[in-house]
C-alpha cells in the first residue's frame, strides 16, 4: 500500500503517527471502527469550548496549511469578518500537484478523521456548512467520503444536532472533473459554484468574499485532519517535533527513483538525506541522485549538494526551494533534466486555465521552447528567452507576480530552477542537437502540442 512504515531512526524514537498509523492492523474506514479507537472525541472537546478558544489552540499549535502555501491556519480563520453569516468551510481535496498523493489515503482509509476535523473547524469558525471538493480522478475517495458522511448523518454526528449539541453542521461532498487549477482556492470556489474553474481576482480574499460571495475558509484535507488531532492531543503535543516555525507532523509523498516510494507521516525535523537514504531505503539500483523536486512539481529543484537541508518549510527555503505540498520526486542520474522540464512544462501548459494573458501564453510558449530544445532543435538565444520569460526568482520575468493566481509562477519556477541547476545540460542539448541520456523516452518527438488545429478538445491526449 501507499502508506508506508517508518524505520527505527533515533530521531523518530518518540514520534507518534496518528494520521495513518499501521493501516493493515488498524482499520478505521467505518464509523463503528473509528468510534472504537476514540473517534469523534475531538468534536466533544470542541463543543465544550468557545469558537475563539479553538482558534487560539490552533494558533498556538503553529499549524500551517498543508496544501502548499503554508499559511498559518489559525490566523486565516481569524480573518473572517465578525457577525457575517452564512459563512462556509471548504475542504480542498483537489490534490493535483504532481508528486503529491497524501490526501487520497487520508480520505480513503480514515474518512472520519476528516469529518471530525471539519466539525471541529466549523465550530471554530461558526460555519454550518462545509463542502469537500474532491478532484474528479479520486472516484474512490469521493465514494468513501460520501459513505462516511452518510454514516455520520445517520449517527447524528452531522446534521442539525451535532452529537446532541444543538449545533448544525452540513457536509456536501462535491466532485471536480479534471482541472489542476481547481486546487487554487478561488478557482475551487468558482468551480464549486458551477463555473469554469477560473481563479478570482484578489482582493477581496475568500475570507471576506468567497463561495457565493460569502465569507469562506478554504483548508486542505490534511490541515483539517490535523485540527482534530490537535484538539484531541493538545497544541503542545503537536509542537513536540518542531523545526523553526514548522510544527507537527506532515504526510510526505515520495515518488521516483527511491527503493521504497510511499506516503510517510513524519515530523519536519529530518534531513533530506535521512529521508531518502534511511526512510526510503536509498536510491533505486543504488544509482546516483541527480536532483530532487521536494514539494510538488512547482517548487524549485534541489541538487544533491543540499541533501543535509532539513525537510521543513524553513530548511528548504534556506536552499532556495520550498516544502510546498510535500510531494517529493527523486530523480536518479538517468533522468535528463531537459526532458523532465519538458514534461512539467507540458503539464502546466495543459493545466493553465487560460484566463489571464501571462499564464496562458507564457506557459505555452515556455513549453514550446523547452520541448524544442529537448527534441534537439534548440537554437542559440533560446535559453536567454526562457530566462526572460521565466525570470530568475520571485516576481521576476514576464509571468511571475503578473498573473491572476500562482499557477503562472508555478509554470515559470521549474524553468528558472532547471536553468539554474542544469544550464550546461541545456546548452549541450542546443549545441549537440541531441541528448546524452541513454534511457531518454522519445515520446516527445511526436510533437503533439504544435501546429494542430483546435476545434474541440485539446491538443493533449489522443484523438
Amino acid at each position, binding site marked *: 500500500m501507499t502508506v508506508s512504515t517508518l524505520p527505527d531512526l533515533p530521531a523518530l524514537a518518540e514520534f507518534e503517527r496518528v494520521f495513518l498509523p499501521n493501516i493493515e492492523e488498524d482499520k478505521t474506514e467505518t464509523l463503528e471502527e473509528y468510534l472504537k479507537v476514540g473517534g469523534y472525541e475531538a468534536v466533544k472537546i470542541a463543543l465544550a469550548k468557545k469558537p475563539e478558544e479553538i482558534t487560539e489552540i490552533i494558533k498556538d499549535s503553529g499549524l500551517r496549511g498543508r496544501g502548499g502555501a503554508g499559511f498559518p491556519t489559525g490566523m486565516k480563520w481569524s480573518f473572517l469578518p465578525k457577525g457575517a453569516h452564512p459563512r462556509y468551510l471548504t475542504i480542498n481535496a483537489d490534490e493535483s500537484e504532481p508528486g503529491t498523493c497524501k490526501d487520497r489515503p487520508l480520505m480513503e482509509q480514515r474518512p472520519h478523521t476528516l469529518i471530525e476535523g471539519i466539525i471541529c473547524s466549523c465550530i471554530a469558525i461558526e460555519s454550518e456548512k462545509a463542502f469537500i471538493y474532491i478532484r474528479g480522478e479520486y472516484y474512490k475517495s469521493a465514494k468513501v467520503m460520501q459513505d462516511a458522511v452518510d454514516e455520520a448523518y445517520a449517527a447524528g454526528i452531522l446534521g442539525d444536532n451535532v452529537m446532541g449539541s444543538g449545533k448544525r453542521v452540513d457536509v456536501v461532498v462535491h466532485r471536480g472533473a479534471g*482541472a489542476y487549477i481547481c486546487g487554487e482556492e478561488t478557482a475551487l470556489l468558482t468551480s464549486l459554484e458551477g463555473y*469554469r474553474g477560473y481563479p478570482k*481576482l484578489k482582493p477581496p480574499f475568500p475570507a471576506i468574499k468567497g463561495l457565493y460571495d460569502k465569507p469562506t475558509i478554504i483548508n486542505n484535507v490534511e490541515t483539517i485532519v490535523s485540527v482534530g488531532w490537535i484538539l484531541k492531543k493538545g497544541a503542545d503535543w503537536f509542537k513536540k517535533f518542531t523545526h523553526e516555525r514548522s510544527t507537527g507532523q506532515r504526510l510526505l509523498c515520495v515518488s521516483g527513483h527511491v527503493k521504497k516510494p510511499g506516503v510517510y507521516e513524519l515530523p519536519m525535523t529530518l534531513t533530506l538525506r535521512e529521508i531518502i537514504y534511511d526512510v526510503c531505503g536509498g536510491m533505486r539500483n543504488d544509482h546516483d541522485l541527480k536532483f530532487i523536486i521536494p514539494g510538488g512539481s512547482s517548487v524549485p529543484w534541489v541538487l544533491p549538494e543540499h541533501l543535509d537541508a532539513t525537510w521543513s518549510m524553513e530548511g528548504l527555503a534556506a536552499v532556495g526551494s520550498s516544502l510546498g505540498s510535500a510531494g517529493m520526486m527523486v530523480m536518479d542520474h538517468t533522468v535528463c533534466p531537459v526532458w523532465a522540464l519538458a514534461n512539467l512544462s507540458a503539464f502546466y*501548459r*495543459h*493545466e*493553465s*486555465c*487560460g*484566463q*489571464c*494573458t*501571462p499564464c*496562458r*501564453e*507564457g*506557459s*505555452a*510558449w515556455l513549453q*514550446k*521552447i523547452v520541448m*524544442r530544445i529537448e527534441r534537439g532543435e534548440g*537554437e542559440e*538565444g*533560446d535559453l536567454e*528567452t526562457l530566462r*526572460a520569460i521565466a525570470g530568475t526568482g*520571485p*516576481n521576476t520575468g*514576464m509571468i511571475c*507576480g*503578473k*498573473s*491572476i493566481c500562482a499557477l503562472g509562477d508555478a509554470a515559470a519556477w521549474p524553468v528558472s530552477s532547471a536553468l539554474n541547476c542544469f544550464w550546461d545540460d541545456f546548452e549541450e542539448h542546443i549545441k549537440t542537437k541531441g541528448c546524452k541520456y541513454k534511457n531518454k523516452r522519445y515520446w516527445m518527438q511526436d510533437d503533439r502540442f*504544435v*501546429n*494542430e*488545429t*483546435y*476545434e*474541440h*478538445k*485539446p*491538443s493533449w491526449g489522443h484523438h
Partner: protein
Amino acid sequence: MADQSVHPALKPGDEEIKLVINGKEVVGKKGETIISVAAREDYYIPHYCWHPALSVAGNCRLCLVEIHLPNPRNDNKLAPLPKPAIACQTPITEGMHVFTDSQLAKECQEGMMEFLLVNHPLDCPICDRGGECMLQRYSMEYGTPHTRMRDPKRKYLKPEADPLIDIERNRCIMCTRCVRFCDEVAGEHVMGVFARGSDNYIGTFGQGPVANILSGNVIDLCPVGCLTSKPFRFKARVWELLQTQSTSIWDASGSKVTHWTRNGRLYRTTPPSRKYHGVYTVNEDTEEFIDNITRFGSDFPSHENRWDESRVKFGENLLPAAFTEAVRRVATGLKKVADEHGPDSLAILVSPRSSMEEGYLAQKLARDVIGTENIDWRVSFQTAEAAEAAAQAFQHANGDLEDGFDAVVVLNGDYLHSVPAFAMRLKEHARLTGKPIVQIGHHHDAFLAPHSKYKFHCAPGSTAKALQLLSKGVGGDTSVVSELAKIFSTESSRVEALITLLKGVEGRGLVLQSLEDLNGLLLPNEVPAALAFVGALGGGWKYIPTLRDRNAFGLHAVGAQPKADAEGKSVNARQLADAIEDGTIKGLLVLGADALHHSPDRERLLASLGKLDFYAVSDLFDSDYTRIADVYLAAASHLEKDGTFCDVEGNLARLASTEGLVGGARPEWEMLTGIATIMGSDNFAYETVEDVFKEMMSVIAPDFKGTFKKLLLAGPRNDNSIKDPGGARTHTKDYNPGDYRTDGAHFRWTGEPVAIDDQTAAPRSVPESGFDGFLLTWGEHVQGDDYHLNHASIVELLQKAPYVELNPVDAVKLGAETGDRGTLDINGESYEVELKVCEGPAPGVVYLPAGLGGIKLSGLTDTQAVKLEVVKSNALAEAGAGNTA
C-alpha cells in the same frame, strides 16, 4: 484645490480619497478604481479586457501598474507592493502612489504585448480592424519592436457562426469583452469561452449565431481583429472613409451614430466615433450601443430601385422632370383641388421618420397655407381611437432615463424589439443598481424579465382595470388587494408587497407604456389608466410612452397631427382610406411612402389612391406607392439631408448629411418651402434648414438654448471617455454632453394628471373563456417588414423569421419547447412560426411580433382568439447535429 469644498470629480456625500499618480496629487472617491481616476487625470493606462460598460475581468493584465503604499508599521513611509497590480480592479486608497510609466509598469506592458503577439498571425494587411486596432496601437506605444517567438503559432478553425459577425479566432486575445457583453448587456450568455488554457477560444454553442438585436456591438467591443463586420468585410479601409456624426432613423431610443462613407456610398454605421490619440475611430471604450438594424440596415438609399429624379405624370406615364417643375405641379395640383372642393378635401400624410422640420413645415403648409387640420403622421395604429390615445400619451410624456430611476413600472410590450437601445439602458440601470423593475400586463418584456423584481400577469384587456385598482391601492385603499390578487392570479401578500414597494419610492419612479402593444387596440383605456396611475403615485413619478416610430415624439411636438379639439372633425391617418373612399378627401400629399406602407390596411389605402383627383408623394424608391402618383418628388435620404429628431426621452439629435445630395433628390423642407411659396405664401422664405429649425423652436420651445449646429454633436450619455492629446483628422467635432439635451424645450408635460372613470377603465371585452386556443397579442418588431429596411442591402440577414412567444405553463401543456415549430391560425389563415418559451406572455396568451415573415395583422379590431399547434421536432438532436467539426 484647497478652497474647494467638493472636488469636481465627486458628488456631495462621496468619500474623498487622495492619492498620487505619477507624482501628481489627485482626488477620487472611495470605491473608484485606479484606471478610472487615472483616465480622468489624463493618465492613459492601456487595457483590453476592461470596459466601462462591462464587469471587471482582470484577465489581459495590460493595465498592471506599480503601487507604493504608506506602511503604518514604518512611520507611514512608502513601501512598494511586492507585485504590480491591475489598475482596472484595484480600488484607490488613501496615500497610495501609483506609477503607470515606471520601469516595472513598462516591463509589464512590454511583456504582455509580447505574449499577446506570440500567437497572433500578424495579418494586418488583410485584417479589417487595421487602422483602429488596439493591438496595433499598443504595439507601437507599449510594445517592443522585436519578437522572440520562433515556434509555430497556434491555429484555430474558422467557424461560420454568425451571418453578420466574422470570427477570426487566431487574432483573439481572449479579453472576453464579447462574452461579457452578451451575458451582461444583451442579456443572454450565447457566446462563451471554450476549451482551456492556451487552446481556449471564443465562440457560440454549436456554431450558432449570436442571435440578438444588439449582437453587432461585439464588433466594436472587440479591441482586435477577431470579431469584424461581415457586411463591411474587405470593403474599405477605415482611414479612407469620411465620418459623419448623425442619428439613427430606426431606433426611437435616439441612438447616435457615425456614418462611414466614401464616394456617396455608405460603408458602415457604428456608434459615435471618438477621438483617440488624434484619430477619430470607433472608440472601443464607447458605452453607446446600437441595434443591428441601425448598424447594418442604414444603407437602403443605395438600393437599385432608387429614383433620384423627380417625376411628373404626362398622360399615363410618369416621366422625369426638373425639381422646380415637379414642385410647381404639386402646388398647382393641390391648389386646384382646394379651389374646387375646399381646403378640407386635402390631406397631408407625414412619414414617422420625417424630421421635425419637415413635420413643422408640413403642418404649417396645411394650417397656414391650405387651411386644414388634415395632417397626420400616426399611420401605424389599428384604429383612429388608438391614434388619439397615442396623442394623449405623448402630450403627457415627461420622463427620461437621464438620472436613472428608483423604480420602474413596465406595462405591456416587447420593448427590446421596439426601442432596443432604450430597453438596454433601462435594463442596465436596473442590473447595475439593483433598482426594481415591475412588469404588469398581459405581455411582459422577456428581455427585462430576469431583472424584474415583480412580474404580474393579467388577462388582455384587464391592464387598465388593474392600474385603476393599483392607483386606489397606493392611495391607501386596502380593499382593492383581493380584487387585484384575482386579476393577477396571485396571493394577496404579493400585491401588498407591490403596493408597499410603489409607495416606498421616494426618488424617481417611471411608468413605461408601449404604444405598440396590440398596435394600440387597447390604448384608449390603457393610456388614461396609466396616466391616472402616474398621478396617483405622486410627485417623483414620470411617464414615458414608447413607440417604434423614430420621430413620433418630435412630430407630435411640432403638431403634425390634428389638434386635440379637431380630432373627429378632421381626417387623421387612420380615417384616410375611408375618407378617400367616400370622397371627402380629393387630394393627398404624402411625405415619405413608408407612411403608406406602415398602415395596417395598406392594401385598402393603396387601392383607394386611384380615386383621388390629385396624389403627390415624395420618396426614395420606385414602388407601388410612387408609380401611381401624379407627381413624384425625389427626396433626399437620411444620409443626404439635415434635420432634427426627438427620441422617446425627449432628447433632440440632428440627422446630418454625409456627402451632400444625390442626383435630383432634394430634402422635403425645400419641397414644402417651394410648394407653399408657389401656393402664394410669403412665410416660407427659408434659406437653410437651420432657418426652419430656429423658427420651429421659437414656436414650440421658446426657452430652448441649444443651436441646430450643436445638435449635430453626438455622444454618450455618460461621457467618461479617455481623454486624448488632440489633433483631429476628420470633420468630426468634439462632443459636449450638455449640448444635445433639450433643456428649455417644453417637450415634457408638467400639468396635472388626467383622471380615469370606471367606465373607461373597465376591462375590454375578451373572448369567452373555454375557447379552444390562445389570446393573441402583438406589436411591431424592428426586424420585421419595413419599407426602408426592405431596401437595405442585407435585408435577408436582418429580418427575423416569424416566431411566437409562449408562456412556460402553456408550453408544458402543449409539450412544446423553445425551438419547436408550430402553426398559428389567425382569422382562417395559417402561419408557420417558431416557438419561443419565455415569461413574456401571460398564461393563455401568445405574443406574435408583427411583420416578421410578412405576417400581416390588418383588420383586427379587438383581442383575437387564435389556435396554436405544435409541430414537434427533435430540437435537441437538431442542435447537436453539425457541431462536430
